[in-house]
């Protein structure tokens, strides 16, 4: 893990001195803020709404907005991680310093993840607002955030991997968006395939929608943990192998 900290700090620095980071975070918060406003407005007008639905579970679970936002935001967050350095040549200076490939991959990943966490952090305010006006299920809130973080960890890992596999930031972005879109569409397949078929099983297993519904209602299923664990670790592993492979290309 030689070189992890300096690279991690530099990556964060590089991300936040460019307007891109702020544009992404601001647009994320605008969309989530509107989302939250509409939900609260909706629930406040329909007081006798069906029992188990709460603003919290609706915000994290029963909505397409969450994934659409991530589908749009994750690819530009990760596209530059490796592709930019390879295009500009700075990767050569980086990889000739006494650092291990694993450290480089993990440092870049950790910086993206930190940015992601920073992006979500202001939404904790919504919980504060909700808890002031009524009862809040803090366990469900915690599991919702676990879910959001797991989805992000997996998506960012896919994005980092795509960035390591091409020298073009644009291609990295397109590839990431494609993979995430395929995952998302497979998830929708849960509702269109017939129950009992293998396809239905697969679709249900990868359905980010179903996953977030679970998390939003306070259920942390170990199958979800394994799924997102794999989705995070496998692309990272491929990326580390790719970084080593440049050396022998």
């Amino acid at each position: 893990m030689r070189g992890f900290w300096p690279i991690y700090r530099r990556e964060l620095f590089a991300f936040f001195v460019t307007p891109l980071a702020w544009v992404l975070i601001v647009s994320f918060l605008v969309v989530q803020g509107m989302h939250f406003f509409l939900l609260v407005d909706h629930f406040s007008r329909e007081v006798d709404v069906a029992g188990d639905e709460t603003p919290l579970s609706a915000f994290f679970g029963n909505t397409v907005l969450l994934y659409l936002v991530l589908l749009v935001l994750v690819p530009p967050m990760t596209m530059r991680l490796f592709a930019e350095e390879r295009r500009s040549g700075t990767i050569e200076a980086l990889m000739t310093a006494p650092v291990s490939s694993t450290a480089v991959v993990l440092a870049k990943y950790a910086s993206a993840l930190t940015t992601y966490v920073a992006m979500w952090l202001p939404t904790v305010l919504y919980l504060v607002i909700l808890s002031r006006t009524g009862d809040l299920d803090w366990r469900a809130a915690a599991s919702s955030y676990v879910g959001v973080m797991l989805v992000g960890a997996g998506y960012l890992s896919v994005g980092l991997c795509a960035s390591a596999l091409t020298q073009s930031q644009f291609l990295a972005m397109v590839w990431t968006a494609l993979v995430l879109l395929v995952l998302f569409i497979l998830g929708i397949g849960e509702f269109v395939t017939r129950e009992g078929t293998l396809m239905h099983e697969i679709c249900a297993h990868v359905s980010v929608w179903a996953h977030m519904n679970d998390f939003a209602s306070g259920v942390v299923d170990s199958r979800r943990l394994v799924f997102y664990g794999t989705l995070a670790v496998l692309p990272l592993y491929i990326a580390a192998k790719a970084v080593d492979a440049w050396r022998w290309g």
Partner: protein
Amino acid sequence: MAGYKGPALIAVSHLVKRYGAELAVDDVSFEVGKGEVVGFLGPNGAGKSTTLRILAGFLGPTSGKVTVAGHDVVDEPLEARRSIGYMPEGVPLYPEMRVVEYLRFRAELKRVPRTARATWVDDAMRRAGVVDVAHRQIGHLSKGYRQRVGLADAIVAKPPIVVLDEPTAGLDPNQIRQARTLVRELGREHTVVLSTHILGEVEACATRVLLIHRGRLVAEGPTDRIRAMRNATAVELTVRGDGDGAARVLSSIDPIWELSRVGSGDDMCRLRVQFPSTLSVDECAAATERCVAALVGAAIGVREVHAVGGSLEDVFAALTASDGSSAEAEA
């Protein structure tokens, strides 16, 4: 660092690098001793950058063994990389960082102890001459300054070896002069390996030259030998008239000189006198004087005298041809 006492700081034996079907480096072997300034000379695409990238640990060798300060670049990559300060071709830097931020980042990456970091960065900035732009953003710097930031980066961790790939590429003549001075200064404290496709560059900086062509090491020797070949090849004279008279006069001085007509114009003619390669630098200068004196003595107007340096190709040809007789040439 100072601890290394072995005979060769860099040892490369039978290095081969293949990109798919293309052979970029073909069985290259050489050694570099402590305190040397070695110039890698060859045309573009000869395999210089590939060799340096393998030394620096950016690329892995297809076969062969490369050790840097006693560490094998494949088996002990981190230790090997720690003993090299490398400046890649084109000096890629992070444009959004300030010079001092970048160098602190690089120093930390190269594991300069925390307490020494600020001092060493200041040191490197002073030696590379970037103190006055320390707080400027790298993206706003001129090419010359960026080159110097690259040099500062190469020396910031005080490595025993400094490897510079095309350190003067893209600079204007003034900056080239400054860069060469810097490289010579580096040579006092570090072992330096640099690459270039310009003959004058190695002459100005290096103590020893490795000639690489199509991936093969075609010759190596002290810079003086290269310089001799370059300076002592031929002279071009522009004379008044059709040149026949001048040719007669010149060929009567020494019949073994090769005489050729390289151009003619309105009442003028340019002749080239090729001296034999056995002549030393001084002898060639004397021969040039005799040419001019003879022409003037024969009342032929001399308009221009121009000593012709051997081109890189000439030096290649001469070096590869004289490989067998190098003992005689050095005697």
